């Protein structure tokens, strides 16, 4: 399959690499049995930078080998064994696995439950970093390195739904107002910091503002269950203070110290308005 003969049309470089891939796969499967599957692409690359994949392949064209007696719980999709042998040295060595399994697995053919579990564990770990006291709070960049947008999405929708359930009239309008306020608010707050000359990554900031809604979610749930105004006020004040405390170090370190109040005031305004919505919806 070489293109060194002058009487043949030279192959396109990408098809040459595909042919190499197929050769390697055949060789690998012959040598080490069907227990190894060449990874197609590394799973969950770190988000703070552009994902680097040194693998020249995008998709594996060969169907995965039939499932072995290894730990597969999914019947439809052949799964990758939990501890595959070290991968062949063809350009896969730099892929990074956030979950620490070892060599990367093929995320396209893994069971759905594995994907969901990985995303859920990422949400929980991000939540612990952002909302609860931990030693990384002083360095916000380190705290939310593995940001994602699923968590904020769940929290915003949950808050909108809770407020909508609490309302007795105009339920859909309440949901619309809450969702628009939170989603547009997160984007506008991030833009505010950028316009004031601060340095943050756009999606990391959106992610952080979404995670800081978690205390207000709890507050809204409690207010849904208990309808007393005094209790609502106390609960909302406590959760509001908690949310502001969670968001403070990130926002204040992103801008020039002389403009810190200018960057923090809109955050406070958004959380106070959401808190008021929680108290006021009857």
């Amino acid at each position, binding site marked *: 399959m070489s293109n060194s003969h002058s009487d043949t049309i030279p192959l396109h470089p990408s098809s040459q690499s595909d042919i190499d891939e197929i050769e390697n796969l055949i060789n690998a499967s012959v040598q080490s049995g069907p227990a190894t599957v060449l990874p197609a692409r590394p799973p969950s690359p770190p988000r703070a930078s552009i994902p680097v994949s040194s693998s020249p392949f995008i998709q594996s064209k060969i169907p995965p080998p039939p499932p072995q007696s290894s730990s597969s719980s999914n019947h439809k999709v052949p799964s990758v064994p939990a501890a595959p042998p070290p991968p062949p040295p063809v350009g896969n060595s730099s892929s990074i696995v956030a979950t620490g399994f070892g060599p990367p697995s093929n995320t396209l053919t893994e069971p759905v439950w594995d994907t969901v579990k990985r995303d859920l564990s990422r949400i929980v770990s991000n939540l612990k970093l952002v909302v609860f006291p931990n030693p990384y709070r002083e360095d916000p960049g380190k705290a939310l390195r593995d940001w994602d947008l699923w968590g904020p999405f769940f929290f915003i929708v949950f808050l909108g739904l809770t407020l909508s359930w609490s309302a007795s009239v105009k339920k859909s309008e309440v949901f619309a107002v809450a969702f628009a306020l939170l989603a547009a608010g997160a984007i506008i707050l991030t833009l505010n910091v950028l316009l004031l000359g601060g340095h943050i990554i756009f999606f990391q900031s959106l992610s952080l503002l979404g995670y800081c809604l978690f205390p207000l979610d709890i507050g809204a749930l409690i207010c849904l269950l208990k309808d007393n105004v005094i209790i609502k006020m106390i609960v909302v004040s406590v959760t509001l203070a908690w949310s502001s405390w969670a968001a403070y170090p990130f926002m204040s370190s992103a801008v020039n110290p002389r*403009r810190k109040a*200018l960057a923090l005031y809109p955050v406070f305004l958004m959380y*106070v308005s959401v808190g*008021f919505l929680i108290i*006021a919806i009857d």
Partner: protein
Amino acid sequence: MQNFPPNSGSGRGYQTLEAPAESFEQQPPNNWKGVFNISSYTQYFNVDTDVVINRLISSFHPTAGDFFNKIEANPDLYGLIWITTTLVFMLSCFGNFATYLMQKHTDGTTTWSFDVGYVNVAASGIYGYAIVVPMAFYFLLQYLGSNASLIRFWCMWGYSLSIFVPTAFLLLIPVELLRWIIILITGTASSCFVALNLRSYIEGGNDLTIIVIAAFLLQMALSIFIKVWFFP
């Protein structure tokens, strides 16, 4: 033997007047990098906390008339955006509360109900006013040949709305007469702020007094609208 033209050595030909390369500018340098680039808008947010507070406090003095001098070099849109947003929130929040208090005052048996439509009306009303009115004045003054600067107009009108934020809080008092007195006082103060600053800024002399009066009346109309719709 003299070469002709005399300063051909500098390579400029007959041009004896050396135009300064970039040193004269009729307006400050504009870092416009395109509509979708954030860094082309950061020039309008180049303010510190103390500058913003200073401008806010000066907006509470309706008779000073020197606001445009203050913002001449560095107009900012931060005040416009966040004062209007705060006002929208205050109006919808306190408006609901004040309506409830007023009904309770007169009726005694009403229960609390949160009308989320207040948020929509407040947002469209305040944002619409704060964006459209300065633009209208800008285009009108451009048409009439006077000087006008859109950013400075937006900045000034934005800060003129700041007095309505404590007003919204004061209008919670459920006494009708007191509410009218409060809104008329603050509406007049805000309108005077707008009118006097506008008058000191535009250079058209007495022909453009009608513009100043129109600005005054529009601001008064906004304050009456706030009272009638949100604090009935």
